[in-house]
């Protein structure tokens, strides 16, 4: 299997074998990601980071991954200082930038922007998030984290909790977990449930029917992993209703009392109010470890698509 030259746009484009290869290579990259060893696999290579929207973890972990491998990074965050503010098309921007670098990673508010960028570019393009659509490197690191924490994904009870309708992380993670035969439970407030197209896809492709509930306690009780995302307040017309749901959909030490001893709580971050700060101190809080795994995963992806890692 060879990922050289491949664009990483959607988790739907990756086979189970390709995901397992990325995970295997990420494991090999971990000592370098931690800074204990140095490597020069990407020496002389440049990563272009085109972030048309703000990002902390994705952009910085791509930068860290490239620099840990001896490569360098150029790019921008926000469009005010680029020709995009003069009305340049995304296609033209990509055709320009690809001449300055070896790989491009892009975050853009429009859905499908990364696919369009990949069509315009002769260099590999990695999607760093396109609107509410896909964020495949986040999904890859989420799966990797679960595997690292639990040793497997198959047959694990994984609960996805929060705004399952709008969060792109949840949509692609649900599909990916189904691909690896996890038992899914979906906990969402009324109106923010996982959309039918994802549920149908899970059912048709993987013959899996997730449990669905509004009740947090029963949704997390038997979970091995609880993956939380924030309630997107900006999506509500009624702000009072949004605050009511935010308060009700909160993980606290009290909620976790009846959970499994070795539960792992994950979150794509940034978190706002959905996790009580007291949970940060509990051993089940694994979200900061999760954010580290973004570096070896992105090292593996950069190495594989550039051909530096075989």
């Amino acid at each position, binding site marked *: 299997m060879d990922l050289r030259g491949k664009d990483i746009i959607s988790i739907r484009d990756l086979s189970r074998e390709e995901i397992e290869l990325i995970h295997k290579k990420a494991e090999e990259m971990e000592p370098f990601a931690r800074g204990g060893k140095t490597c020069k696999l990407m020496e002389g290579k440049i990563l272009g980071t085109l972030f048309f929207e703000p990002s902390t973890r994705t952009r910085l972990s791509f930068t860290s991954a490239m620099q840990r491998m001896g490569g360098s990074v150029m790019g921008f965050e926000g469009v005010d200082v680029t020709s995009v503010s003069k009305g340049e098309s995304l296609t033209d921007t990509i055709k320009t930038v690809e001449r300055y670098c070896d790989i491009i990673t892009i975050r853009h508010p429009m*859905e499908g922007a990364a696919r369009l960028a990949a069509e315009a570019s002769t260099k590999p393009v990695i999607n760093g998030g396109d*609107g509410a659509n896909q964020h495949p490197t986040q999904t890859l690191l989420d799966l990797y984290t679960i595997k690292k924490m639990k040793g497997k994904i198959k047959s694990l009870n994984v609960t996805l909790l929060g705004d399952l309708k709008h969060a792109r992380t949840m949509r692609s993670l649900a599909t990916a977990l189904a691909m690896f035969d996890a038992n899914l439970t979906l906990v969402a407030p009324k109106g923010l449930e996982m959309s039918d197209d994802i549920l149908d896809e899970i059912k048709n492709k993987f013959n899996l029917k997730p449990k669905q509930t509004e009740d947090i306690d029963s949704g997390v009780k038997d979970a091995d992993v609880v993956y939380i995302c924030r309630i997107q307040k900006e999506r509500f017309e009624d702000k009072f209703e949004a605050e009511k749901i935010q308060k009700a959909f909160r993980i606290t030490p009290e909620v976790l009392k009846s959970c499994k001893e070795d539960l792992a709580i994950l979150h794509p971050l940034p978190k706002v109010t959905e996790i009580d700060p007291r949970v940060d101190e509990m051993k089940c809080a694994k979200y900061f470890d999760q954010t580290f795994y973004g570096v070896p995963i992105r090292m593996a992806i950069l190495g594989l698509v550039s051909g530096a890692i075989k």
Partner: protein
Amino acid sequence: MKEELRVRKIKDGTVIDHIKAGKGIKVLNILGVENGFANVTALLMNVTSKRVGKKDIVKIENKALRKEEVDKIALIAPNATWNVIKDFKVTEKNRIELPDKLEGILKCPNPKCVTNMNEPVRSKFKVEEKEPVKLRCMYCERLFGLKDML
């Protein structure tokens, strides 16, 4: 009375037959009859058919169908037939079938899709299901039914 006699045969053009009864008007809409369509056109509705019970038929003089038009008609009239008429004779008989991919003929209904930006890009949809029709935009990856598209 023979059905053909209700509307006379056309000398040159296209006959779209075996359209599901009631869908003929939609076929005409797809062909753009409302927008300055100059060809002589006939629509027969609820014609008795041995094969499908009731059907609609569209006859258009001096017009050959383009691939984009055939693909679009396939969305609402799968299994219809499309005959090319030259000098009163059927010279070509084709079945209208929905292809696996539709390119450049539909607009993505998602306003946040990149194909609705000012970019040099043609829309692309993967046909995920044919009955009922489900189409996935190959850019924003959203899944749409027919009622979202036409």
